[in-house]
């Protein structure tokens, strides 16, 4: 557990940092983050599978301005790692990985708010130096915020994985629902959120609905042609 926890926690920290602080290159998106976590567990394709499902949900929560949004980087590492530890994909594994990721993303969003409050506290504490135009103070405040964000991601991932992974393993052992039904429910839920998110994003764009309908026709044709 410890051997897998350390690299996962570090990955969660780096990806948590990417969400806002540095460099916002979107390596924290579930599609990437869960795949990287799966890769650490030796199962990158499993990570991609759950990452795609999480990405559909994450489309709804884009980082607009000062809004409060869930933190997907660390959460996707937790969900991706839990799912990837079951390479045979037993019934319930993906459901539990998704649930773990969603629970972690909720807590992660809360920790980001707390971090921003801490940043404000530090800025107030160092106000004298900032108002005096001190290079050292400006740089220290910036680096303190980034270091705290990294630590936040590491701790969040370590705690969430330590708590949720054994719970998921226990639940998989007594899982009673059919595997196909479990997977269908996840997909229905995730794609519903994506559909709703797409409507919110594009309904005011002129002509977008026709592009959507055209795309849907292409997508359905390709799906049934496969």
């Amino acid at each position, binding site marked *: 557990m410890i051997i897998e926890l350390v690299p996962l926690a570090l990955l969660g920290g780096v990806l948590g940092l990417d969400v806002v602080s540095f*460099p*916002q*290159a*979107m390596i924290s998106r579930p*599609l*990437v983050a869960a*795949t990287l976590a799966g890769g650490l567990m030796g199962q990158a394709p499993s*990570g*991609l*599978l759950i990452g*795609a499902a999480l*990405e559909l949900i*994450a489309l709804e929560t884009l980082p*607009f*301005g000062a809004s409060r949004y869930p933190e997907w980087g660390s959460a996707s590492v937790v969900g991706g790692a839990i799912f990837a530890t079951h390479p045979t994909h037993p019934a319930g594994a993906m*459901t539990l990985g*998704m*649930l773990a990721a*969603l629970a972690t993303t909720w807590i992660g969003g809360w920790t980001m708010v707390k971090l*921003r409050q801490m*940043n404000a506290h530090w*800025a107030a504490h160092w106000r004298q130096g900032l108002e*005096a*135009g001190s*290079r050292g103070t*400006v*740089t220290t*405040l*910036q680096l303190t*915020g*980034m270091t705290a964000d990294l630590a936040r991601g590491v701790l969040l991932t370590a705690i969430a994985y330590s708590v949720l992974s054994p719970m998921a393993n226990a639940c998989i052992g*007594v899982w*009673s629902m059919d595997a196909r*039904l479990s*997977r*269908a429910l996840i*997909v229905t*839920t*995730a*794609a*519903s*959120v*994506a559909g*709703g998110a*797409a*409507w919110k*994003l*594009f309904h005011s*764009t002129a002509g*977008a609905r026709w*592009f*959507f309908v*055209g*795309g849907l*026709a*292409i*997508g359905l044709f*390709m*799906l049934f042609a*496969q």
Partner: protein
Amino acid sequence: MTSTAAIAPPADAPRLPVRTMAAMFVRLLAIQGAWNYETLLGNGVGFCIEPALRLLPSGIHSPEFKAALARESRYFNAHPYLASIALGALARAELDGEPPARIERFRTALCGPLGSVGDRLVWAGWLPFCSLASLAIFGLGATTFAVVSFFLLTYNAGHLGLRLWGLRTGWKHGLHVASALGNPVFRRGPQQIGRLAALATGIAIPLALGRIIGPGRNLIGGVLIGVALGSLLIVRLRNRIEGWRLSLVVLAVFVLLSVIR
């Protein structure tokens, strides 16, 4: 690369050493490192502009340097990528010796446009488009490496390109940079990308769900009906509960049922 090498300037712009431009660009990636609810991006702007302020003739220990750094570290709000425009323009204004009051007014005036344009172009356009296009490729059966590489390369081509363009454009135009916001990319880009993203949504959702569901594909008809109804429900419920929270509740109930039965 030395500090004497310079970014090719427009005819009337002074030369900015490549080392300074590179330092500002790298720091720009961390502009939100100390983001908070009081000064928002303020300290980040000060942190990013500091390499340029070192070029002030009076040096880094002078009152001019300290006053400029203090001024630039105050409250500022913008989209993190488009803050590069403000950063380049503010660096130019400071090095040109513009009056402090004028710089303050300029900073205040830039906040709104750079926030709203960036949100529409990047968060509501480019990011969902890249994400959905990658999901479509995933649904078509692409390899793990191909899906992740496509997403990261496509997204970051736009991301890094926008930051670099913004920095150079801001530096080139200085306090007259507002005209750059009339660029066709900003005026028509959000709409065009929005349409492409809508197309990608239509293609990606059925393909992605087909690949995720895997062996249970005989359930696909029911799933598609469920997705249509679920999407309608989420649209109807907007402002009351977010979809991801609803998903959390649905999955938690499903897990409980599956474990207790």
